[in-house]
């Protein structure tokens, strides 16, 4: 109905028009290309130039990448193979074929490779109930809780009693907390539980463990931390830091928003200090300085020290990412929870955190990816992560001068892990989408 005659001509529609098909040029592949690639002369030119550029890059790089040097036994040998084919340059993939196991496992004894492989496969099982809660039975979470002890035992080996006594420490702490909280304040009971667990790990446990492992020596061959290396090392440090930094980050983020001045000051101080210091400095502290401060003779594993530093570093960043999520939540959500009589921890757990974490997923996963890649920095403190190993491999005269091939391979493996994390976060965001907020 046009406006022009609306005062003079009355109009009432008595039949509604049926829906019609859209024009064929706006749907399907043709429609997609018209809107996305060729919408106007400028975009058409851009599309053609970009395609030309991509073709040029591939033309230059592909011949180098696809080079028949998988059987090369040294850099010189590779060059001979290439010269025989009349190619001027090409990648020397022989180094990957010969050294890929080292890049994966470092100097781990080769007859024990099954242990890290098994630990990795079990890792996939352990994280399944956390990542795909819809498809996996929640009972598997028990395995996820046992996994850290199992993995540590598989990787480092030694007597079976060590992981069992480590678990028992948590059990002791929990039991003390559980029964203590019925008698005294929950906060005091928690402190008592922590003290009991530490007492168990440092005094009571070892006292029982020593005669026990002497009497019943069940165990597997132990492997020293300095034999760890390659992606095994990166994954061990990375996964630990990722798994531990999230809960610590949540606690720090909540602490930073706390009304309790002391708690707030501690959290802010920690976050700002850690964020203000480069990771490398923390790693140097872990590798060199801690030994000076610790009592002589204490055997504090280097990988454990690095794990703690990387975890604390990641946790500080995580806290800020989560604080962003908390700040994005409308105040009404807190009030809604309060008005129903939920207490602080219930409100945080049931209302605030699920939403704040959901908002922060992109940031959290970015931090995860960053931490995982930052594990390569341990090469600076002479641990043999893939980057450190690439130097070690070049020290071999046969492979002196091989750079690109090693870095491309290491990069590709890192990419697989990081890209998987990124895709998973997108899946998770879609899954948690519950209509517009």
């Amino acid at each position, binding site marked *: 109905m046009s406006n022009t005659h609306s005062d003079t001509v009355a109009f009432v529609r008595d039949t509604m028009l049926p829906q019609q098909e859209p024009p064929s040029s706006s749907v399907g592949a043709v429609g997609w290309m018209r809107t996305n690639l060729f919408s106007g002369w400028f975009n058409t030119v851009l599309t053609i130039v970009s395609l030309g550029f991509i073709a040029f890059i591939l033309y230059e790089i592909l011949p180098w990448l696809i080079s028949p040097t998988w059987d090369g036994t040294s850099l010189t040998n590779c060059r001979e193979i290439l010269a025989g084919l009349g190619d001027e340059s090409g990648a020397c993939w022989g180094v990957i074929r010969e050294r890929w196991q080292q890049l994966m496992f470092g100097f781990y004894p080769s007859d024990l490779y099954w242990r890290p492989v098994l630990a990795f496969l079990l890792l996939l099982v352990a994280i399944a109930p956390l990542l795909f809660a819809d498809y996996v039975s929640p009972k598997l979470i028990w395995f996820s809780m046992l996994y850290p002890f199992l993995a540590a035992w598989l990787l480092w080996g030694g007597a079976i009693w060590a992981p069992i006594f480590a678990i028992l420490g948590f059990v002791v702490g929990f039991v003390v907390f559980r029964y203590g909280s019925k008698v005294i304040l929950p906060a005091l009971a928690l402190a008592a539980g922590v003290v009991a667990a530490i007492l168990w790990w440092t005094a009571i446990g070892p006292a029982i463990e020593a005669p026990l492992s002497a009497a019943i020596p069940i165990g597997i061959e132990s492997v020293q931390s300095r034999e760890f290396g390659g992606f095994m090392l990166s994954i061990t440090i990375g996964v630990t830091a990722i798994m531990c930094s999230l809960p610590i980050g949540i606690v720090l983020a909540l602490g930073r928003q706390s009304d309790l001045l002391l708690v707030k000051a501690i959290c802010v101080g920690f976050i700002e200090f850690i964020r203000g210091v480069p990771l490398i400095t923390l790693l140097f502290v872990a590798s060199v300085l801690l030994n000076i401060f610790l009592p002589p003779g204490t055997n504090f594993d280097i990988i454990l020290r690095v794990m703690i530093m990387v975890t604390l570093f990641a946790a500080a960043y995580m806290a800020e990412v989560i604080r962003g999520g908390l700040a994005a939540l409308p105040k*009404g959500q807190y009030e*809604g*929870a309060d*008005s129903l*009589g*939920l*207490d602080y921890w219930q409100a945080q757990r049931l209302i605030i955190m699920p939403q704040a974490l959901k908002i922060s997923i992109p940031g959290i996963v970015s931090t995860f990816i960053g931490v995982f890649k930052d594990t390569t920095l341990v090469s600076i403190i002479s641990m043999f992560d893939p980057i450190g190993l690439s130097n070690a491999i070049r020290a071999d005269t046969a492979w002196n001068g091989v750079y690109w091939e090693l870095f491309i391979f290491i990069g590709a493996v890192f990419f697989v892990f990081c890209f998987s994390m990124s895709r998973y976060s997108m899946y998770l965001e879609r899954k948690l989408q*519950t*209509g*517009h907020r």
Partner: protein
Amino acid sequence: MTNVPTMDREIDRSQMQVSDEVAIEISNMNKWYGTFHVLRDINLTVNRGERIVIAGPSGSGKSTMIRCINRLEEHQQGKIIVDGTELTNDLKNIDKIRSEVGMCFQHFNLFPHLTILENCTLAPIWVRKVPKKEAEETAMHFLEKVKIPDQAMKYPGQLSGGQQQRVAIARSLCMKPRIMLFDEPTSALDPEMIKEVLDTMIELAEEGMTMLCVTHEMGFARQVANRVIFMDQGQIVEQNEPEEFFNNPKSDRTKLFLSQILGH
């Protein structure tokens, strides 16, 4: 002042009895935001079964006052006694009062990550420790009462504003509160949806619920309230029965307010 909009249904007053029992007692309550004196010397006694509408210009402290009743805002002076329990810093008392006092907000404040049913069962399960099954039955009962049982499995984001506000009312009712607070429940709604929310509130009133409503719906005030309170600059300026309040306002400020809100 005859053109107060009226509701288009008869109201069943058989259950609407005001008892002598005191539900809320506020005496000499003062509150400051920083140095700004938002609430000045508030004295208010609400008996069980009373339906009170609180009106006033924006910034007059009416929302702040009812938010003090369940401690979403803290008062600094005076006394608030709800259901015989005084509001102090004792967290136990605060949580107890909050679980007895239902509240509906202007922006509903439903939990967007939970379904409608989960929104309604959350507090009964965690605060009242009701078994899940029983909580769900109660929730469905109240969702039927607000006429949206078929939306139970949807998320708040998929519902219209009016439906969301009715869910919010149902969510509060699931805690079986003895007092309901409404903070501008219809202000964020399209005109078409205001009526469905008001109808739900009227039904509640008909069942004898003690209600305090901050609202600009003067038709609702006139028909349902047994007392209208007018606030300005953090003080109660005038309170009266609705007929007297609308037809014969005493203070000049009230007259001005009514002429502006009803004049057009």
